[in-house]
């Protein structure tokens, strides 16, 4: 899968990695049983500190997305068969509504976060 890091973004680097795994899962690019790259390899390629990648992996483990085992690497356990298709469809409708209401992406995601923390 494609991993990107934007050092210019306000989002913390480890959170950018975590978000990409969630997106890949929802798209079905990643599914149960897939192995994530070794933390050291990912850190090397993205010019990150290895602890940044490990923090992202720990976060993913704590939310039940991956299984971290010494020697086995990071294995996806929380994938679904077809990704979260229905969530994405609903989300597209939400994005369209937000655009129609001339909400900025920041405002729209703030609303979404607020809704989800209820």
């Amino acid at each position, binding site marked *: 899968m494609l*991993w*990107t*890091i934007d050092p210019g973004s306000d989002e913390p680097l480890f959170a950018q990695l975590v978000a990409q795994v969630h997106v890949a899962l929802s798209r079905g690019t990643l599914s149960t049983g897939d*192995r994530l*790259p070794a933390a050291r*390899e*990912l850190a090397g*390629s*993205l*010019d990150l500190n290895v602890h940044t990648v490990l923090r992202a992996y720990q976060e993913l483990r704590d939310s039940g997305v991956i299984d971290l085992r010494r020697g086995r690497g990071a294995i996806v356990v929380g994938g679904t068969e077809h990704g979260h298709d229905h969530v994405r469809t609903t989300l597209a409708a939400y994005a369209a509504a937000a655009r129609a209401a001339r909400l900025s992406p920041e405002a729209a995601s703030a609303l979404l976060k607020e809704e989800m923390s209820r």
Partner: protein
Amino acid sequence: MTTTPAPGPRTTEPWKALARRSTLWSSAAGLLLLLGSTAVVLSWRNDLPDPIASHWGTGPSGAPNGFMSLTQWVTTLLAIGAACIVVFGAIGWFWGKAAMTRRISAAATVWIGGLLAVVQMAALASQRGLSDAAQAHDTSGWWLAASYVVPLVPAVAAAVLVPGDAPQSTTARVPANAARVALADGERAVWIRRTGGGPGLRVGAAAIVLMLVLAILTRMWGLLAVPVLLAVLFASMMVFEVRVDATGLAVRSAIGWPRTFIPADEVVAASSTTVHSFKEFGGWGWRVGRDGRVGIVPRSGEALLVERTGGRSLVVTVDDSETGAAVLNTLADRIRNG
């Protein structure tokens, strides 16, 4: 294949001198192994029956069913060996633009010489002291296995001895019509994908299970070494990790070797293509195909094609190759941005 403008003047082609040198010494080495074993079996002339057994039946008796004179045997093997060495050597001589092609060609010439050397020594050593070749018992399957495996040692040594390519960086931009990904300034990217499977892996898995069952049923525990060796062989030839990042393209087998790397400054263009491994490369795994093209083709189908400076190219069968090609084009072009 798309045509790309030649990166430099075409007056000198430095790869040709390298290709000739490695082809000559590796062919000589392969031939020497064959000639050496021929000298050894000829020195056994007085101990061997005449005619000698040259072929064995497959039945439970394993009795010989083919006979020929020693001279005929030696000439036949030399002819087969010479023909194979010429064919494998020609690949390096005419198409050895890439070090990988020259390496595989050198390894193949040495390997075939070694294979025939072991075959003829094993087949004839067991007949020494016999008065009638009809008594010759079949050489065991162990020798057959050894004739394939033992020559791998000098073959790998030959591959290692072939010098790698000198760096050939380019400052030409990646063609504008090549696929790209949208990356912000300063945004970093890496694309990592495992590839493998295909008929090679299925055959390998079946062979490993079969040998395990056979070893357990016959209680010949030495046979357990075979599935272990097979597992290593298939892990090194049929499962790979492909990685594209700012440094370039890296392909590495599941056990870490063999591996290859194309630096970003040697990438002319990357694209997604379709490969028929058997038609274009004559099989599966890490191979040299038509025109000396290097292919890492554990299966047929979608593949990432990287055209490299010096007229070289590499093709790797991997899913989502469009993303891989786009990331490589984007990152390779970025370092030429001035």
